[in-house]
Structure formats: structure tokens, C-alpha cells
């Protein structure tokens, strides 16, 4: 085993992780920052984000309006102090990115251009054509290259946090290329490992979005917050789950059922107009639009295809020029993966799992309940997204809270005592290495194929815990998951070698996902109301008396997670009705 030590260690090289690393490097170049990522940073999932990042820019817009849109979008489950901080900071962060070279799209006079986005009352979404996440990630990564105090551990897979007396002191990771197990110690650790979309079968998320960081924190004793809040994006391609960005609707695309009818008008989302109207029809929030599409499927007004039902997203009336200049990637993806040109044909789409509002519970400083452990980005839940994230708020979140996590970790290590009990930590790491060997590398005779377990898990999540849930379906899923947990112990390994053993990482990811899936199902089971992305058929109403609170899933020694509740922070915006298109 190899050991090394740094001041602050960041798990994850996506937008949040890079932003945190840069913040620390800028504030104190003397500190040694380590960044552990299971893929090269520029491969992180932030790269796939298309639409844009919201931040107040125009004269006619205000921070309060952005707050209100976010809060009502969250169905009042977002913490209002965190949201206010976020809305205040985000324009500064986006500007900083501009100064670092991000190629934001421009107005003819050279100022930043903004576009409308779902659930937002004003035009405030900054974008870089429809490759916003790609440009943000590459800008951050390239900028990070100039700081010498950042040490990268690329293609290193974190398997366990090292905890001493309740405080987090580093982690154990497998260096993929050599298969070496490394113990990397640090005074503070920041989790920026992104989402867990792969828990579901149809998802826009990349293969690496397996909720590793959530599971790592959870296994170390930190609670996961609001895990039942999993967002479906209304417009994904049926087979691959590839996302057709919301910008397609913001630019004026229509959703049509099999009769060519703009069905959203039947779901209290406003009246159809030829050009898009803010917070109305196709620019409604994602939860409501996805639910409307399921409604059409149930009424038999969707199309039937080999990968289930679908409806149409029609861009034809926008014309080739607009599609080519504002939505080039949409066209590229449709041509490649669907063999269809959106200029000439409507796009087949279905709701697919897109984003995890829940995550590792943190306070507004991004601190988790474990001393020395911080979290930011999609892996964390501070929570600004509550029960439903607005499109283009998450690229902002990774910047604002990524940076803040850097500052908080810095503050923490200045105050914390630096001495740690080396031998205790190293023996923990040695235990972990032994576990990896026994459970996977040396294991023979297993009969359960990873892919099979993974498919069964994701399908039970979709059927039991999809857009609409109810007690029975959730109980079935919970039972299925505990069965899968058992069977996971008997996983079959073909590869017993060290070098770039991707079967080992798949097996570990499956383990992480099973834990995460369990917290999702049990949080959903306990929340007996409907709010935002969490729609219970048996409890169709929002219940502010009982559930204006975050669910907190704690790991218990045996059996399912323990669910507790934490009140939502309400400052200036008392809970109200979510009104769209009226």
C-alpha cells in the first residue's frame, strides 16, 4: 500500500471539485490540495450539461425573483438561506468563469447573452451554445492546471473514507492503472462526486454517475438528505436516455402527443402561444412536465415504440437557421443516435431520470455532520433544489457551493488539530485493502453477474419508485433491494488481476448504488405526501404540517436506513401554491 498526505483532499474532478480546488489554491497557495477522481477531470459528468447556468444578469431582473423562482420550483422544500446565498453569489461566479476564459455566448454588442429556461420568470440563463457544461468544465480544468499546489490523482477510485474518532482523515483509493491501493490522508475531505442517475434504467447520466460519494459518506455515518427527490427530465431519447436539452423548448419547441396536440394545456400549465412564455406550457418546471407526459401515456395518447411509450418534441417550426445556431448539439445528437433531423422531423422523447436533488446532508457552509467532511455539487444537498431543481440551477450550484466548500475546508483545517493517530488510520486502510481482496479480487465461485444485479436494481427503481409511487410499489422495491443486497455478496468475478480492473470498479459501484437506492426507496416510503418530484398516488396532496421537512436517511447497523426529519429553513417566503402558466 502506498501512503501520502495532503492538507485538503477533494473527491471528484467535476465542476464542483475543480472549483473547490481552485478556490483553495487561490486563497492559500501554500496548502497542498489533492484531487482524487475516478476519471480524468475533463471526462467528469459536468461535461454533458447542455443548457446553461442561471444567474441574474439583466436590468429588469432581481436576485429576489431568482430566489422566488427557485423556492417555488423546489415546492418550498429548499432552504431559503442557502437559496439566497446562492442567488447572490452566482452572477459573480459566472463572471469569474468569464474571466477565466469560458466562451459564453454573446449579444451582438459583446455582452453576455442570456436565454429563458424552464420554471424561470426572467431570461437569466447564461449559456455557451448548447455545450455549457462542456465549456465550463474545460475552462475550470484548464485553469486549474496553472496552480502548482493542486496534486491530481487521476483515475483513482475512492473506496472508503478513513475516520478517526468520528473525524474524517482521508480515504482509501485504488489507482486504476497499477491496481495499487493508496491511503491518502488529509485534514479535511470534500466530496464532489456528482449524481447517482445510474441507479435508474433510463437516465441522462453518464456511466460514472453511481452515487459513490453519497454512499461513502453514508457508510461513514453521515446522513443523506431528501433522497426521494429524484428528478425526471421530460425530454430524453428513448433508447439511450441521451438528453435533449430544455433549451430546445426554451427556444420555442413544442411537446405534442400522438394527435399532434400540445397536451400541456390540459395539465394546468397555461395556454398554448406561438412563442414561448416564461413559466408556462413547455417552459413549465420539469416535474410537472414529466408528470404530464406520463399522464398522456396513461390515457393512451402517446406513441408506442420498442423502448416503451414516447411523445414528440417538435422543433420544425423554428427553422434550420435557429436550430443550427442555437441548438447545434441537439441536431448532432438526433442525427447520430436517432438517425433523424429535427429540422425535418419531430424528435421522439420520453421522461428519463436526470438529477438527484438529494445527497449528502450539509449545512449552508457545506459541512456534513462528520467533522472534517464537506460536500458540494450534485453529491451534496445544502439544499437549494428542494423537491425539484430548476434547469440551469445546478451548474450554478457546483460553482457557488464548490467554492464555498473550499473556503469552509480551509477554515476548518486552520482550527482543527492537525495531529492524527497514524497507526490507527493505516490499520484502517489495511483493513480496507484486505476487504477488497477478500470480497472481490481473490473471490471465486460467485454466481451473480454484476450486470444482472444492476439491471434488476434499476428496474425495480423504475417500477416501484419512478415518477409516480405508492406504498405497495415502494415496499416491493425495498424488498427487492434487500434481496439484491444479499445476492451482491455472491457476485461473480472474472478478473482477479490488478491492472485497470474495471470489473472491480463496476462491482464497487454496484455496492454503492445499492446503498443509495435503499435510501431513495425508504425516504420515499416515509414521505406520505406529494411534493415536487415525489408523487405518491396514495397521498396526492402536499402536506406542509407534517412534511415541510427534509428527510434524513441514516445508516443503521442492520436492516434498512433510519429516516428522520429536519425542518426546512424558511426566511422570507412562506409556503404557497406553485402556479405556472396562470
Amino acid at each position, binding site marked *: 500500500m502506498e501512503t501520502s498526505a495532503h492538507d485538503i483532499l477533494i473527491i471528484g474532478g467535476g465542476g464542483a471539485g475543480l472549483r473547490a480546488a481552485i478556490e483553495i489554491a487561490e486563497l492559500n497557495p501554500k496548502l497542498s490540495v489533492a484531487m482524487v477522481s475516478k476519471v480524468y477531470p475533463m471526462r467528469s459528468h459536468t461535461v454533458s450539461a447542455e443548457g446553461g447556468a442561471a444567474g441574474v444578469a439583466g436590468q429588469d431582473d432581481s436576485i429576489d425573483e431568482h430566489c422566488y423562482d427557485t423556492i417555488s420550483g423546489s415546492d418550498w422544500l429548499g432552504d431559503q438561506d442557502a437559496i439566497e446565498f446562492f442567488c447572490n453569489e452566482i452572477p459573480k461566479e459566472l463572471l469569474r468563469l468569464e474571466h477565466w476564459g469560458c466562451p459564453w455566448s454573446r449579444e451582438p454588442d459583446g455582452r453576455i447573452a442570456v436565454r429563458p429556461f424552464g420554471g424561470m420568470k426572467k431570461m437569466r440563463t447564461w449559456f455557451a451554445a448548447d455545450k455549457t457544461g462542456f465549456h465550463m468544465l474545460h475552462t475550470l480544468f484548464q485553469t486549474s492546471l496553472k496552480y502548482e499546489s493542486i496534486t491530481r490523482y487521476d483515475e483513482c477510485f475512492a473506496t472508503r473514507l478513513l475516520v478517526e474518532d468520528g473525524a474524517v482523515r482521508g480515504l482509501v483509493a485504488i489507482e486504476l492503472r497499477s491496481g495499487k491501493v493508496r491511503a491518502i490522508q488529509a485534514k479535511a475531505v470534500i466530496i464532489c462526486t456528482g449524481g447517482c442517475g445510474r441507479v435508474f434504467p433510463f437516465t441522462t447520466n453518464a456511466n460514472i454517475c453511481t452515487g459513490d460519494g453519497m454512499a461513502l459518506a453514508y457508510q461513514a455515518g453521515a446522513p443523506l438528505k431528501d433522497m426521494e427527490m429524484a428528478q425526471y427530465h421530460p425530454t430524453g431519447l428513448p433508447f439511450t436516455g441521451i438528453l435533449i436539452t430544455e433549451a430546445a423548448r426554451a427556444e420555442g419547441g413544442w411537446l405534442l402527443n400522438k394527435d399532434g396536440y400540445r397536451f400541456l394545456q390540459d395539465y394546468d400549465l397555461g395556454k398554448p402561444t406561438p412563442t414561448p412564455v416564461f413559466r408556462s406550457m413547455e417552459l413549465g418546471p420539469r416535474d410537472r412536465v414529466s408528470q404530464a407526459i406520463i399522464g398522456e401515456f396513461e390515457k393512451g395518447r402517446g406513441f408506442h415504440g420498442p423502448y416503451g411509450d414516447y411523445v414528440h418534441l417538435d422543433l420544425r417550426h423554428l427553422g434550420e437557421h435557429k436550430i443550427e445556431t442555437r441548438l447545434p448539439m441537439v441536431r448532432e445528437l438526433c442525427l447520430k443516435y436517432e438517425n433523424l433531423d429535427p429540422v425535418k422531423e419531430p424528435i421522439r422523447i420520453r421522461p428519463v431520470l436526470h438529477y438527484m436533488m438529494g445527497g449528502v446532508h450539509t449545512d449552508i457552509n457545506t459541512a456534513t455532520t462528520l467533522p472534517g467532511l464537506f460536500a458540494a455539487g450534485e453529491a451534496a444537498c445544502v439544499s437549494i433544489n428542494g423537491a425539484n431543481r430548476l434547469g440551469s440551477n445546478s451548474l450554478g450550484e457546483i460553482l457557488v457551493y464548490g467554492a464555498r466548500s473550499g473556503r469552509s475546508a480551509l477554515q476548518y483545517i486552520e482550527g482543527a488539530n492537525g495531529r492524527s493517530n497514524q497507526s490507527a488510520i493505516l490499520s484502517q486502510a489495511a483493513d480496507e485493502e484486505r476487504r477488497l481482496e477478500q470480497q472481490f479480487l481473490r473471490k471465486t465461485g460467485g454466481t451473480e453477474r454484476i450486470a444482472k444485479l444492476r439491471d434488476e436494481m434499476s428496474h425495480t427503481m423504475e417500477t416501484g419508485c419512478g415518477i409516480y409511487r405508492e406504498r405497495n410499489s415502494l415496499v416491493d422495491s425495498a424488498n427487492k433491494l434487500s434481496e439484491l443486497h444479499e445476492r451482491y455478496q455472491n457476485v461473480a*468475478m472474472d478478473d482477479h488481476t490488478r491492472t485497470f480492473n474495471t470489473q472491480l470498479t463496476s462491482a464497487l459501484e454496484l455496492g454503492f448504488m445499492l446503498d443509495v437506492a435503499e435510501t431513495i426507496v425508504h425516504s420515499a416510503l416515509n414521505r406520505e405526501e406529494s411534493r415536487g418530484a415525489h408523487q405518491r398516488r396514495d397521498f396526492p396532496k402536499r402536506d406542509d404540517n407534517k412534511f415541510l421537512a427534509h428527510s434524513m436517511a441514516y445508516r443503521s447497523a442492520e436492516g434498512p436506513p433510519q429516516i428522520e426529519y429536519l425542518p426546512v429553513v424558511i426566511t422570507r417566503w412562506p409556503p404557497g401554491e406553485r402556479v405556472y402558466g396562470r
Partner: protein
Amino acid sequence: MPQYTTFQPKPYRPRMSAYWYLDQWHYLRYALRESSSFFVAYFCVITLIQIATLKAGPTHYAHFQALMRCPVIIILNALALAFILLHAVTWFLLVPRVALRQVLNRPTPDLIASTPNFMVWFGATLIVALFILGVF
């Protein structure tokens, strides 16, 4: 028994063969294009000799012409012509890979970028041909 190891392995470093340009048609085309420069030089030398003999007087020039009629030289010249055609065509096709986009400041389809070169080339050939045929 699983072959579990703790051994630290070395990556495999492929070496390019000495005949790498035969591996792929693209590479071969590139190698031919590069070697065509040799024939360009050859033609230049021939032309220089031609001018020199022309200046040295009719007998020298007659000598030169006789030499040019020798079959080996004819074959060589035919080969050189082929290579020079290749040279011109491949380099013209490379124009869009080189600079034009900067001028137009817009992505230009490759063919449009190289067309003017071909046109100038054909034009010049035509004029030379007419000249040789004695039209002027």
C-alpha cells in the same frame, strides 16, 4: 485458482514499423505526396538544363533533345508527370487544412476552399497549351 497478482505491470509500447507508411492508405498517400517533391525538383533541374543548353547554342540544344527522346528518360518523365499531378492535387486539397478559414472567418466547405486553386491551375495549363499549339 484465480491468478491474483500484486505485480506492478509495464504497459506495452507499440513501435511503429519502419514501413509504417504502408500500413494505411492515408499514410501511403501522404508518403507519395511527400516524395512527389523529389520529382518537382527533378523537373526544375531538367528545365534549368534545357535553358542552359538553349543558351549554349543549337547543337547543344539538339543534343539535349536527343537525350530527352531516350526511352529511359521518357519513362522517367512520365513518372515525374504523374507525381507532379499528385503533388498539385494533394496540396490543393490541403488548402482548407491550411489557412483559408482564417481569411473567410467562417467554416468553408473543403471543396469550395480548394476550387479556386484548381481553376487557376486549369486556366494556366490552358494558356500554356494554347501557346505551345501556336495559337498566340
